[in-house]
């Protein structure tokens, strides 16, 4: 018997650690029901961010939600953060078991 999974979208945001509180407040406001954050470092168009100190640290935020909400969040990030912050975002299709949760 296969499990009754349902499709959702996984939105991943990689950005500067310094915006964590502001960004999480934005997510709350946009109606996201949950998120997961982990610490990261990296390189991109804004140079090397090696997490040696807070200024140069990245975070990696994951949000599981319905596709329309993911797109709304993306639109907000594009308007509010893309121009001025080191930020990369991407969407992936995933399957979850408890669709009412996300």
């Amino acid at each position, binding site marked *: 018997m296969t499990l009754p999974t349902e499709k959702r979208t996984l939105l991943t945001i990689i950005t500067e650690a310094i915006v964590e509180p502001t960004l999480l407040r934005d997510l709350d406001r946009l109606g996201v029901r949950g998120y997961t954050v982990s610490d990261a470092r990296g390189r991109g168009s804004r140079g090397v961010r090696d997490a040696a*100190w807070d*200024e140069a640290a990245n975070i990696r935020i994951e949000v599981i939600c319905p596709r329309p909400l993911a797109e709304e969040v993306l639109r907000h990030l594009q308007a509010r953060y893309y121009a001025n912050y080191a930020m990369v975002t991407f969407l992936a299709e995933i399957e979850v078991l408890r669709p009412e949760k996300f």
Partner: protein
Amino acid sequence: MTALDPVILFFLFGLTAGLLRSELKLPAALYESLSVFLLLAIGLKGGQGLATQPLAPLIPQIGAVILLGAAQTLIGFVVLRSMGRFSRADAAATAAHYGSVSVATFAVAVAWLGARHIDFEPQMSILLAIMEILAILVGIVLARGVSRDTDWRALGHEAFLGKGVTLLLGGMAIGWAAGPEGLAPVKGLFFDLFKGVLALFLLEMGLIVSRQVGELKRRGIFLIAFGLGMPLLSALLGLGTGLLLDLSVGGLTLLATLAASASYIAVPAAMRIAVPEANPAISLAGALGVTFPFNILVGIPLYHGLAMQLAGTAP
């Protein structure tokens, strides 16, 4: 004639290792822990000093450093806009760095005075906290103008409840409530190890400063000139303010150092959120890559020399 302080040697070591691209790296948690320690220790020291004296003379002093900080920020802003042709955001953010203070620089100056047995007024740590708070507010106002929808609550939270200010003020409150005797049991950690911890911290600072070199090369001569000239001007303003307040030679030296120093922790974090269009690499290259090393290597002894002359106690 006197040998270099070991804390300075640690800084130079970190700087050299970084420039040679050594694999040396301190764990981020250690760096953070050391900075918590230094902020608390400075607060405690200041607070225990305050416990033994009346608080009334503090009021004019606080007023004076508010003016001092605001003046520095404005001067910096004008110079960066006119001579440096910085954008409004970049000028405001960078000026806020220089209107604020660097706790590490202050700690080095405290250690420098301590090694020479030169006393200073305990309230210097309060003035440190005040200048840190103020510059954040002024910087944001400069960049934004004061519009109707300024979120003053969020701003105040940012300024007063940031990590650094919380630790400084908390340490001061504890030191003040406990007094020198009350602090005796925690002296072994917070006071006796102060210089050793500062040395380790400066090792990491050296590594961080070494990473600013690339940006400095990219930005060219103006940023270097500003990074050297601004602290000199600020130190003079600080000395002037200190004379008006009738500070001791130690106090004059510290106030000059505070004025000359530029923030690289609290202000960058606040500006990144409040003035996101400013490029943080510029302000950091100036504050960390030029002004910080200048102050700890050359500035502090220089400001002390000037303080002695102004106080008429040149040796």
